[in-house]
């Protein structure tokens, strides 16, 4: 966010409670996330730090059936061409992003945002911050951007609308890192699905899957996601659960994990799925995980946070210049657009879990494959039923799954796309 504001000529003040480097989950990027980083001039940094170059993702069912989604970009003629993105160890990546943000001119307070400040009409005017040195400062803001991730700070402050559970909130993710794995094999410089830096998604039953994300030449991030009730029913510690699941969940994964010694603590995140529908207002907005997180399966988190920041920065610039100051919600157009885009991700995830065979048909059918590759890359903000008819097909598939009761949870999608396609 800060880098995009700096690009707009706005000097932001960043408030961050953590000291970097620190552990964080969210390591595999979509194709468009890589493009955002390139456009920010960060490619050299990523290459210098030797982050693995992801060519795509292999999705492998328990019976060994698999499908492959390559990272592809749209060239100037709007044709798809091969591209690559990255997988990052977040302790390194986030440290570097913070350092680069400060190098580019952002101001920074090391501390925790505690209490929001509001004027009589509800406009957000700043925050009280508890600094790491023990002092407390009152920060005044013209626009306060909540980028606190799953902490959803403004929701806890009662500024946003209610934080409702998302469809996948009865899930738990348990994860760590391992060494000595069998990564993509047989890479001959041509078949990108075999590249050793690729992400794998292994799935077993509905809502029960695992990730395999190379973090460097040796270390691979591994995680298992399952219904929380399944985890509880096992009566195991996180580490026991993770190690047993990694050995059992999917034969191809078992084969790839020769050594189940965890080199990181086994961590867990339960109930990560939620949705806040009103996430902008006078003097404030939420970006990224602070307003909606569906499910990590297709690695959209980092990208959505960065892309929303890219869209937010010019909207904030216009607001600072006086636009929309008298409106009850000056950022309402931005909010609707972000919601409409994430609705496509909801469809992708619901379609996959609700009807995996029909979903695989959409991904593999030559008639729709390129459009699905666009969605997986993150090209979700400007797609229309005219440019991408497959989004209608995907929506129909997801709706059928949502209506048939094969998915759990309620449907709280935004209305951007529905309005646009009406």
């Amino acid at each position, binding site marked *: 966010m800060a880098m995009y504001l700096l690009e707009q000529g706005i000097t932001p003040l960043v408030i961050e409670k953590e000291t970097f480097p620190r552990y964080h989950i969210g390591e595999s990027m979509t194709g468009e996330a890589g493009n955002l980083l390139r456009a920010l001039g960060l490619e050299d940094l990523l290459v210098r730090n030797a982050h693995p170059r992801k060519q795509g993702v292999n999705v492998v069912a328990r019976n060994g059936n698999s499908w492959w989604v390559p990272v592809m970009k749209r060239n100037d003629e709007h044709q798809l061409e091969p591209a690559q993105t990255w997988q990052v160890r977040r302790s390194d990546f986030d440290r570097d992003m913070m350092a680069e943000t400060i190098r580019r001119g952002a101001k920074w307070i090391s501390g925790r945002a505690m209490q929001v400040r509001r004027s009589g009409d509800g406009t957000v005017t700043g925050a009280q911050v508890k600094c790491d040195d023990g002092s407390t400062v009152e920060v005044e803001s013209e626009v306060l951007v909540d980028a606190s991730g799953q902490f959803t700070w403004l929701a806890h402050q009662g500024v946003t609308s209610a934080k409702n559970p998302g469809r996948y909130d009865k899930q738990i993710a348990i994860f760590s890192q391992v060494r000595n794995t069998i990564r993509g094999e047989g890479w001959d410089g041509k078949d990108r699905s075999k590249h050793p830096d690729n992400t794998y998604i292994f799935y077993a039953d509905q809502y029960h899957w695992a990730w395999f994300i190379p973090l460097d030449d040796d270390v691979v991030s591994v995680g298992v996601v399952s219904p929380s009730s399944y985890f509880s029913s096992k009566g195991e510690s996180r580490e026991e659960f993770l190690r047993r699941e990694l050995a059992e969940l999917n034969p191809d994964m078992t084969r790839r994990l020769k050594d189940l010694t965890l080199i990181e603590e086994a961590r867990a995140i339960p109930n990560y799925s939620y949705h806040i529908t009103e996430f902008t207002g006078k003097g404030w907005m939420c970006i990224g995980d602070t307003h909606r997180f569906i499910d990590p399966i297709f690695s959209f988190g980092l990208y959505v946070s960065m892309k929303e920041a890219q869209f937010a920065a010019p909207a904030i610039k216009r607001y600072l210049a006086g636009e929309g100051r008298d409106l009850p919600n000056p950022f309402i157009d931005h909010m609707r657009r972000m919601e409409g885009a994430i609705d496509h991700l909801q469809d992708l995830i619901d379609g996959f879990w609700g009807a995996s065979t029909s979903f695989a048909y959409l991904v*593999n059918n030559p008639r729709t494959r390129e459009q699905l590759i666009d969605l997986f890359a993150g090209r979700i903000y400007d797609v229309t039923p005219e440019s991408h008819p497959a989004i209608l097909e995907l929506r129909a598939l997801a709706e059928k799954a949502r209506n048939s009761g094969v998915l759990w949870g309620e449907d709280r999608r935004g209305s951007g796309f529905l309005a646009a396609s009406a």
Partner: protein
Amino acid sequence: MDTIEQTVKSFILDSFLPGADPNQLEADTPLITGGILDSLATVQLAVFLEQHFKVEIAAHETGTENLDSLALIGAFVRSKLAA
């Protein structure tokens, strides 16, 4: 069997049941629920139907209600061709 069913039957026998006795595959033999077609084979079958019969099959139509037997497939393709 109608020609649509015959064409689909040949495709299934050639692609997924090489060497099988063609008489075992009857009009009402359950294909998906009977385990003859796994998910990958179902995807291939649906793509084949689209391309061979030049009809458009939406993803939500690729379930057992339309593809679980040669008879269902025949009726489904005919309804598409008539539309």
